[in-house]
Structure formats: C-alpha cells, structure tokens
C-alpha cells in the first residue's frame, strides 16, 4: 500500500512539471490556433541552455531557471516573428509541417554541435528526501513541483486579473470580435508564443536536477504534453493541470506494475481512447479560462 502511495506521490510531483509544459502548448493553441510540434524540442534546447549555464557558472539550476525563462521568452518571440507568423493564416497542415521542421532542426543541430550523449548535472541535494508516513518525497522533485505550482498560479492571475491577459483570452475566444474591440491580435500571437515557449523552457530546467539531457529528450516529453493537452481539452488551462497530474500518475503506475519499457505504452493507449470517445477532453473543450 505504501508502495502504491509512493508511486502516486511521485506521479503527482512529476505531473506538476508536465502541467507547465502543457500549459505552454495549450496557450499557443488557444490563442494562435497553432499546434506546436516543436514544444518538446524548445524544452530540450532550454535544458541544454540550463546545462551549459550550470557548467560555466556553477549556479543552482533553480536560479538559472529565471535566466533561461527570460531568454526563451525572447527566443519564442523571435521564432514567431521570423517563421510562424508567415504561415499563421494558412491551414493546420502548414503549422504542423513548419513546427515539425523547427523541431527536427533543433534536435539535429544539438546532435551535431554537442553529440548524442546523455548529459546531466549533479546537485548536492539530488538524493535528499523527506519522509512523511511511509512515503518519501524527493527534495528536488518537491521544489520543482512548487515552482510549477507558483507558475500556474501566476499564469492564472495574468489571464484573469490583468488587462493584457483578458485581451489574450478574448483573442482566443473569438479573434475577429477581439480585433473589432481594438485588440491587436498580432501582438497577442507573439506574446502567446513567447509565453508558451517560456513555459516549455521552465518545465525543462525544472526537470534538470533529476533528469538527463540528450537531443531526443524532447520527443517523448513533447508527445506527452500533447497527450496532457488532449486529455484536458485543447486550449483549457485547468484541463491541462488535471490532465498533467493524471498522466504523471498513470506513467508512474504503469512503469511499476506493467513493465518499465512499456511505461509509455499505457499513456499512448489512454491517449487514443480519449481521442476516440471524448475528443473534447475530460474537462470539456473550453478555451483558455
């Protein structure tokens, strides 16, 4: 029983980070109607950025997180301005192909520059943990979860309590009506993409204390964030949180009780089942709210 509880806790802690990554994806989809196939690879790039900043300065990954987040906010804006905005009026197919091209580019430029090897950082508190009842809570995972939770709250405040956030939500509800109300939708697109990429980057760096970095790391995490977003309903942020926690727990349980090499399998099956029977997601298909 305590083993079961342990798995649930581990799953929830990891799920918190998945929520951040998926929130980024869902903002981009909600506001821009773009399915970003490169989300996982932006995350991978951020992990490399975090890794090298840590290597050269020795800063704690949770401090480099702020730096990487800012960096990737502007990197996201740059990519949106230079590439995404050129096809944004086109069909989904173009969005998919373009972001796919960006994803493959990132993945392979990193392989070419830094090699395919696994890299990792060592932090002094890596194996520190707290015992509550029979359940161990790992210190870095807990910190990452708290960072994720704070971030989600901040996002919530931004979207519901600020003028800019409200404008963004209006834009995601109905772009043309929002434009008629004087909202600059181009500005909304750029900001949404910047924030979306920043969230992927934060998720990536928050994983670093207990995760390895390698060029393909974004493939699985990107696919996972899609699954989260579909589970929660595309465009819905509360949905993304629920979906992420669920995916974290399912992954943790199926890795233990089925087989570690099949831990992805359970999630893929659930993904396909949800797509089939409840494609609007478990919380319904609201837009960002």
């Amino acid at each position, binding site marked *: 029983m305590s083993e079961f509880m342990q798995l649930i806790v581990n799953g929830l802690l990891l799920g918190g980070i998945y929520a951040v990554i998926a929130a980024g994806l869902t903002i981009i989809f909600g506001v821009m109607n773009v399915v970003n196939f490169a989300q996982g690879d932006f995350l991978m790039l951020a992990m490399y950025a975090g890794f090298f900043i840590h290597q050269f300065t020795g800063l704690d990954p949770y401090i480099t997180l702020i730096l990487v987040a800012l960096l990737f906010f502007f990197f996201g804006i740059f990519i949106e301005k230079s590439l995404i905005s050129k096809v944004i009026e086109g069909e989904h*197919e*173009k969005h998919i192909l*373009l972001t796919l091209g960006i994803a493959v*580019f990132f993945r392979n430029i990193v*392989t*070419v520059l830094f090699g*395919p090897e696994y890299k990792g950082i060592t932090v002094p508190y890596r194996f520190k943990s707290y015992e509550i009842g029979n359940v161990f809570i790992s210190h870095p995972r807990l910190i990452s979860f708290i960072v994720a939770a704070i971030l989600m709250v901040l996002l919530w405040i931004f979207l519901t309590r600020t003028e800019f956030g409200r404008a963004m939500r209006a834009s995601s509800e109905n772009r043309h009506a929002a434009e008629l109300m004087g909202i600059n939708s181009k500005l909304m697109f750029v900001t949404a993409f910047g924030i979306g990429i920043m969230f992927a980057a934060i998720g990536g760096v928050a994983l670093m204390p207990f995760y390895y970095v390698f060029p393909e790391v974004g493939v699985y995490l990107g696919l996972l964030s899609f699954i989260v977003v579909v589970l929660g309903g595309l465009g819905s942020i509360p949905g993304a949180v629920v979906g992420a926690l669920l995916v974290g727990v399912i992954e943790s349980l199926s890795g233990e009780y089925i087989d570690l090499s*099949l831990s992805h399998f359970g999630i893929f099956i659930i993904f396909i089942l949800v797509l089939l029977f409840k494609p609007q997601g478990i919380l319904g298909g609201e837009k960002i709210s």
Partner: protein
Amino acid sequence: MIRENILKDRTFLIFLILGLMVPFFIKGYALKVAIMIILWGIAAYGWDVISGHGGQLSLGQAAFFAIGAYSVNIAYLSFGIPSLIGIIIGIVFSAIIALAIGLVVLRLRGPYFTLCTLAVGEILRTLLIYFKGFTGGAVGLSFPYQEHSFISMQYTYDYPYYYLGFVMLIIAIITSTVIKNSSFGLKLAAIRNDCDAAESVGINLMMTKSKAFIIAAMITSMSGSFYAIFMNYIDPGTVCGFGLSVQILLIALVGGRRTKWGPLLGAAILIPITELTNAYFGHIRSGLPMLVYSIILIFVVLYASEGIVNIFSKRFAKPIKEEI
C-alpha cells in the same frame, strides 16, 4: 478532369525503358544510390496516397515500413519462408493492421489524426523492442551471410536488387496514377478539400479514407521489405523511428504531392544529399543529414509548398491543382 491511360503515356514508357537499362550504364556506388532513390521513392508514393491524395497528414508511416521490413526478416529467420513471399506476407499484414488502426485513427481530423499516427508509430516501436524473442529487441535482426541465395534474396552484386525495386516502383507509380484518375481519387480530392461537404454529397468518409490508408500502408510496407532485403540488417530505431516518417513525408513534399513523378523526383533530389553529407561529414557527427532535411522542410513549407515538380515543369506533370 483529364483522364489519362498510363500505358499510352509516352513519358512513362520512356521512363520504363530507360529505367530498365540503368544497370547497364552505372555500376558500384552510383547503382547503390539509384537503388536507395527507388526505395525511398516507393515509400513516398505510399505516403502520398493517404497524405497527398487523401489530405490526411500521417506521421506514422514508419510503422508500416517496419511491418514490411520485419515481415521479411521474421518470415525467413523464424520460418524459413523465401523473402519474395515475405514481401507479400508483409503487404497482407500491413493491410490488416492498417484496417484495424484506420478504424480508430481515421475518425480523427487534422492535427488529431497526425498526433494519433505519431503515437501509433511510437507504440509499434515500443512493442518491437519489448518482444525480443521474434524481433531481436533493440539490437534488431540481420540475415546470416550467404552468397547468392534466391531464397533470402542475397546477392554480391546489386542489379537483382535494382530490378526488384524497379518493379515495385512501377507498381507504386501505376497505383498512384490510377488512383488520381479514378472516381476513388475524386472522392479523396473531395474529402481533402472539405470533408463535411464530401459527406453531404454521399461520400462514405470512413470507407474512402480506410481504402486510401490501406493502399498507403501496402505500398509503404513493400518499400520496408525492400529495405530489409537490400540492407540485410534492421533495428527498431532505424526502420520504425520518427526520423523515417519525416524523411518519407519530406521526399513527397519536396517532389510534389499528388503528382505522377513528384515522389520519385523528391527522392532523386534528397537521397544524393543524404549520401553526400554522410560520405563527407558522417564520420564527424551523426544528425547532419536530418539537419539538412529540416532546413529543406522549413524552406519548402514557407516558399514551395506545391513541390518542385509543380514549380519547374508544367510539361512533366500535368498540374493537379484542385481539378474538381
């Protein structure tokens, strides 16, 4: 629309004759490259059926490539079945799997379909690694070395492979052309342009899309079998990877979707680039061919989404801009 009889098409006949004579003129490494062009061309024609003609963007075509490749190897290694029959087993098997998967994934539209096919490829790869007994796990399978064996299709010279591939290529081109000129092709065009409108005029969406998905799977499986025979060695990472799906997609996209020569032309442009980057820089770093591919992909999406066939030659391929 313009109906055409492929056997009366002069370009096609010239291509047929020239294609048959290729091994008389080129030898060695150049012939190997020609075989690779044919191999990836076939796979791209397969993808083009569902994602070009059908307009359903598939990122899981590697799954059927892998089924074809593993069918040949497992049939020979575990049951001693000749490789030529292994190809047919692979095609049949792919058709059955495509029917089953299609019933699920073809209900979905747009990005959901794409995501689901991506997941299908990943699921198959996980299974191939998991069931080590048959598939050799992550290490993969290889044919034991034999000199000149018709049973396992092993030869020390390359032209038998060339002719095997050429026959498959002709089958793929004819299939693609026949689809384009049939009422089935028109139904696919209708679905591609507006699937709700297509349904409202009485086109059975699931039936039409399933057919296209199955045909695509069969052709892709054929190319996978050919890969296994030609390369002698397969592993899940290479034949069922995400990279392979992207490569197939890119070849058809660069050449021009829904055209008679597009996928082959795409392969003829991209495969030599891969070979060159591998030959000159392959020892420095892996990942370089895919890097080049990604740049081409971004470029094509931004500036040339109709493909090269449609840009350079109006004569070579009749433009197929929505002809309904």
